[in-house]
């Protein structure tokens, strides 16, 4: 979620407006991680990282799909243990 916010920030065009308003507010966007220093290279890098992360998560979900026990509802219902210790 955090990554997505960062990616959206430059598109929304909020940075310059904040910047024009007053000096104090200029600091605010920096806090969010989309500071000016990163310039135009930042979002691209983040987008790549975001895509990679999404691909990885997709691969993980696919693998889980393959191994997940079928008839989940019945399976978890039947998993009853006696108390121990």
């Amino acid at each position: 979620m955090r990554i997505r916010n960062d990616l959206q920030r430059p598109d929304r065009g909020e940075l310059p407006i904040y910047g024009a308003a007053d000096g104090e507010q200029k600091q605010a966007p920096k806090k969010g991680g989309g500071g000016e220093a990163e310039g135009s290279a930042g979002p691209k890098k983040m987008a790549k990282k975001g895509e990679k992360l999404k691909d990885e998560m997709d691969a993980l979900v696919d693998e889980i799909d393959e191994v997940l026990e079928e008839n989940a509802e019945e399976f978890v219902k039947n998993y009853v243990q006696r108390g121990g210790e």
Partner: protein
Amino acid sequence: MAIPKVMGTEIEYGITVKGDPDFDPISSCVLLVNAYREDHAGEILWDYDQENPLADARGFQVDGEKYTPNQQENIARNKTLVNGARYYVDHAHPEYSCPEVTNVRDLVIHEKAGERILEASRREANALLPEGTQLLLYKNNSDRKGNSYGSHENYLMDRRTSFKQIVECLMPFFVTRQVFCGAGKVGSENRGHPCDYQLSQRADFFETEVALDTMVKRPIINTRDEPHADREKYRRLHVIQGDANLSEYTIYLRNGVTALVLAMIEDGAVDRDLSLRDPVRAIKETSHDSSCTQELQMDDGKRKTAVQIQAEYLEMALAWAGRQSLDPMQKDVLTKWEHAVEALGRDPMELSQQIDWVMKKALIESFMERKGLDWQSPQVEMLDLQYHDLRPDKGLYYLLERQGRAERIVTDEEILAAIHTPPPDTRAYFRGECLKKYGSAVFGVNWDSISFGVDGEPIKRILMAEPLKGTRAHVEELLESSPTAADLVKNLRA
């Protein structure tokens, strides 16, 4: 000066037989434990004479009946392994008690070896079951229907440290340590407040602060006073509050940090009053808050989050560490604890490759998002259970590990070696090596004794009241110069 923290864990596993509506847990456990074969293959008794689970650390003996099975039942339910572990049937669960170790890295190795041993016996047992049925094991602590089974930690402590002091200094730590060692659970049970997800498998089950019980009205601090060692010198703190963890990193922190805090208590270094107004309530509040921002009511009227309380213990630990010569592993535990506390204060999800409850939560949330599921859906409950599945190809923790999404502490080679090798630096070495060398002559075993039946003579029991004696350095020569058990007994007398 704190004494060395010799330690070990006892894990009860969940067990079921898929495809068998008449599944009986006890006979399945007996089948499982006996399906595991080691070369020594003697019929060895577990020596119940030495046990006293009804002694209370507050200084009294509780009424009750001590469990002593007959000889045949004893042999069927108890296996002592060549690595020094005990593998047995405890009520309706298979249980693995790892050998005593002196450091937390060895603890991770031996707890993980236990997972492999149970999985190996599961495969053997399955070969004996009817087609269409399959025995399954879970390293968790709850069936999510109000039934819990334990995973206990044991730490050797100095008898001179009073139990009262231990309780006071430890309670806030035990209530809050789940932020870095919970195993995670979907939903709540045992009349707990409803929630989607919580940090701990066990928090819902704690009903009192301090007591001897483990099966009903479970206490946060257990008072069992059964040191399995020289009781004039030692206590064994029997910790029932923890979860069964899969993540090596989490196990490392769970035992490593706890051992440090116990050493600090022995040294009088837990010198801040962090008493909670209501520990039983606080342990549930902490568990039910996966943002780790819920403030707990302190006894002095202030409010602190669980992470802030951990940060205070950490500060005390750093101050104490400055006055000690800690070994590199203890320093590493401190560094990792510091890292975890800082990350938990920022965003717990930063620990999605280290801490079980976070790893499981991240996995479930990815799945839910992609599939459009909610926390109540049966697939989500299934993910929760299957995270703990011991089958390497099905268990979701193992899936994360294969994908490089679980930070490791030890290697597969070390784990595999520990299946057949006792730790070299505790009495577990003597126990394990005796089984390897004189298996058929070993009559009975307990943590602090081993007895031999030699040539029709009366049984000879060798006592091992010192957990740090019987190490390789102590007994390797003795074992080498004793080709038979009779020689060993003779040489020990000399």
